C-alpha cells in the first residue's frame, strides 16, 4: 500500500511479463488512490476482530458510534492529505519543522509505541488465521516475519502489496453475509441514527478500541507521505480529496457491516473469545467454508498491515531525522529507514509469540492506539490550522470547529477510560 517510491507498476516492461489475467487485474488495483488504500488498511486484523467483538458483545449498540467515527475519520484523513498536497512533506517532516524538538520527539515515540502494539496485533492475526488452517502460530509467525522482511527489503513490494490487498477484498463477503443473516433491519436503522449506548466500563473500553482501530495514527502518517509521493499538487488536490473521503467512508461501511453480520449471527454472546467465532458470522455466505474464507481474508489483511504499519513508523522517523527513506534504496543506502522497519517487525513478531489469548491481545493493542490517537491528532489539527503552513488552504472557521470537536470528543473518551483504568488499579 505504501505506494511511496514504488513506481515499478507504471513501467510497462514489468507488467508485460505477468500472466494475462493478472495483467488485466493489476491496472484496476493500481488506480486505487492512497486515500482508499490508507483507510482500508484500517480493516486489518485488529479492526476485524474489534468490530466482530463489538457485534458479539453489544449487538447493534455500537453502530451510532461508528457513524460518528466515520465523520471524524473523513475530517482527519482530509486534513492529512491536504497537508501532504500543499506542503510537499509528510507529517513526520512537518512535525520536526513546526514544533519544538521535544514535542516532536514525543510524537515520534508515541507513534512508535502505537505502531509496535499494532504490529503485534497483525502478527497475532497471521497466527490466528493460520491456526484456522491447522498450522501452529509458532511456525506461521516466524515464516510470516521472514517473508515480509524479504519481500520488502529485497523484493518487489508494490506487486506483493496488491496481492495482499486482493486477499483482503474477501471481506466484501461481510455485507453479503449481513444481508443473508436477516438482521432486524428496524433495530439496525434505529441504532444507526440514534445512540443506544450502555453506561458500563466494558462498553466504554470497547468504544475506545473502536475509535483506536478506525482512526489509527499510522493511517494519518501514511496518507500524508503517500500523497506527497504520488506528486499531488494543490492544483490536482480536488481529485485527491474525493479519493480520500470516499476511501474513509467505504472502509467504514465495511466495518459497519462486519458489526451487523456478527451481531446477527452471535450477538449477545459476550466478548469474542476466539477467531473461529468471528468467522462463524460468514456462515450465511460460505456455509461450511466460512472459516477458510475468513482465514484467507484475515491472513491477507494481517500480512498487508504487518508490512505497512512498521513501514509507516520507518517513514515518519526517517522523515523526522531527515535521512533517506525509500523502498527503492538498498539497505546500506537507507540504514535508518530499514533498521526501524526491521526492529519494529521483529519486536512485533516476538511479542505475538508469547502464550496467551490472541483476540484479547489484539483488542488491547487497539485500546492502546485509542489512547495515543487523540494526542497525535492534536498535532495534525494544529498543523492544519496554521496559515504559515498551509496558507489559504488552512482550516476555515467552520472546518476548524468541526475538527476540534472531533478531536476533543475522542480525547475526552480516551481520558475517561484511562482514568477509570488507573482508578481500577488503585
Amino acid at each position: 500500500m505504501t505506494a511511496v517510491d514504488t513506481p515499478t507498476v507504471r513501467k510497462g516492461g514489468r507488467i508485460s511479463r505477468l500472466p494475462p489475467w493478472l495483467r488485466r487485474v493489476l491496472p484496476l488495483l493500481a488506480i486505487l488512490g492512497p486515500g482508499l488504500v490508507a483507510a482500508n488498511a484500517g480493516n486489518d486484523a485488529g479492526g476485524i476482530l474489534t468490530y466482530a467483538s463489538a457485534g458479539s458483545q453489544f449487538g447493534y449498540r455500537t453502530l451510532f458510534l461508528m457513524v460518528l467515527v466515520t465523520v471524524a475519520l473523513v475530517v482527519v484523513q482530509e486534513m492529512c492529505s491536504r497537508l501532504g498536497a500543499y506542503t510537499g512533506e509528510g507529517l513526520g517532516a512537518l512535525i520536526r519543522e513546526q514544533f519544538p524538538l521535544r514535542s516532536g520527539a514525543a510524537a515520534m515515540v508515541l507513534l512508535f509505541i502505537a505502531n509496535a502494539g499494532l504490529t503485534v496485533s497483525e502478527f497475532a492475526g497471521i497466527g490466528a488465521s493460520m491456526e484456522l488452517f491447522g498450522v501452529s502460530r509458532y511456525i506461521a509467525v516466524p515464516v510470516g516475519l521472514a517473508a515480509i522482511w524479504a519481500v520488502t527489503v529485497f523484493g518487489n513490494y508494490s506487486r506483493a502489496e496488491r496481492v495482499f490487498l486482493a486477499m483482503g477484498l474477501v471481506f466484501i463477503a461481510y455485507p453479503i453475509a449481513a444481508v443473508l443473516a436477516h438482521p432486524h433491519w428496524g433495530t439496525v436503522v434505529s441504532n444507526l441514527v440514534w445512540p443506544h449506548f450502555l453506561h458500563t466500563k466494558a462498553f466504554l473500553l470497547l468504544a475506545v478500541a473502536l475509535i483506536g482501530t478506525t482512526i489509527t495514527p499510522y493511517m494519518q502518517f501514511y496518507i500524508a507521505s503517500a500523497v506527497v509521493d504520488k506528486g499531488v499538487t494543490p492544483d490536482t488536490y480536488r481529485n485527491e480529496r474525493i479519493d480520500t473521503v470516499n476511501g474513509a467512508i467505504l472502509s467504514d461501511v465495511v466495518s459497519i457491516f462486519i458489526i451487523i453480520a456478527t451481531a446477527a449471527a452471535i450477538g449477545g454472546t459476550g466478548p469474542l473469545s476466539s477467531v473461529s467465532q468471528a468467522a462463524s458470522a460468514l456462515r450465511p455466505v460460505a456455509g461450511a467454508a466460512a472459516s477458510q474464507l475468513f482465514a484467507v481474508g484475515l491472513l491477507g489483511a494481517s500480512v498487508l498491515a504487518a508490512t505497512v504499519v512498521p513501514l509507516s513508523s520507518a517513514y515518519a522517523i526517517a522523515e523526522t531525522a531527515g535521512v533517506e527513506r525509500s523502498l527503492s534504496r538498498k539497505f546500506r543506502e537507507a540504514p535508518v529507514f530499514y533498521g526501524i522497519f526491521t526492529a519494529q517487525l521483529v519486536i512485533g513478531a516476538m511479542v505475538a509469540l508469547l502464550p496467551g489469548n490472541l483476540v484479547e491481545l489484539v483488542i488491547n493493542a487497539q485500546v492502546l492506539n485509542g489512547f495515543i490517537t487523540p494526542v497525535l491528532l492534536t498535532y495534525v489539527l494544529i498543523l492544519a490550522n496554521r496559515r504559515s503552513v498551509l496558507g489559504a488552504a488552512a482550516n476555515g472557521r467552520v472546518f476548524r470547529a468541526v475538527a476540534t470537536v472531533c478531536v476533543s470528543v475522542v480525547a475526552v473518551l480516551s481520558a475517561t477510560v484511562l482514568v477509570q483504568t488507573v482508578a481500577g488499579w488503585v
Partner: protein
Amino acid sequence: MGFNKPTWTPGRDRIGSSASRSRRLAEIRERRQRQTRDRLAARELEGSLLSLAALLGSDVKAADGNTIGSLRDVVVRWTAGAPYPRMTAIVVRTGKRDVLIGARWIEMRPPATVRLRSSKAYARAVERHPDDVDLAQDVLDHQVVDSSGTQVVRPADVYLAETDDGIEVLGIEVGLGALLRRIGPSFLRSRIRPQHVIDWQDMASFAPARADGSRPRGRRSDMAGRAGTGLELGGPAGDVKRLSPSEVRTALRAYKTRSDRDST
C-alpha cells in the same frame, strides 16, 4: 597424552599473527588518542562557538543589563561570493511583537549571551530581504539534500563564530548528541560540544524562502536548490566531510587567522 601437544602447529604463522595483533593494538591506541583529542577540542570549542539552538529563546539584554525580549531568529545574508554568510540582524520578540535589530548593535558571547552594544539601538519592523536567510526558520531542522537529491540529514544545530567584522555562520551540526542536548534538560543546553560538523563552505546553494512567504510545492527531493527548499550540499553525501571537533578547531583557527589577515 595431551601433555606433549606441540606448541607450534605447522602452517600457523605465529609471527604474522603477532604482527597483526600489534597492528590492532596500535589502531586501538590511535583511536583512543583521537577520542581524547576530540573531547579536549570539543571542550575548548565550547568557549568560542555560538550555538543557534542555545541562542534561540534566550534573553536579549540591553546595555544596562535589563532584558528587552527573547531571541527569535538570526538573519544572515546569503552572498554568492563569500564562503560564510554574515549575520545582518536578529529578530527579537518584545512583548507580543517581533522587531528586527541590526547586527551592528549586537554583541554575542558564547554560549548564549546576547547584548546590545549601546543604550541607543535602532529596532525596526520585521521584513524579508530576498537574500536573507532566517537561520531558525529556514535552516535549523530543515531538510538538507545532496547534489543528487538524496535526503541527507536535518541540521540539529547551526554554529556561528565571532570575527573582527561580525558574526558568521561556520557550519551545521549533524550529530545525534546535539539533538539529545536539545531534547534533554535545559541546564545541558549551553553545553555546546560539536560532534559531526559540515562546513558551510560545502553548501552549494541555499535559496531563501520567497519574498511573499509562500512555500514551493512538490516533493522536496525533486526540487533541491530551488527557492525556499532548503540547503543543498555541493557534492554527493558520501564525499562531504563531517568534521570532528579537532578538525573544527583547526578550521576555526585557520579561519580566524585568515579573517585577521583580511582585515589588516
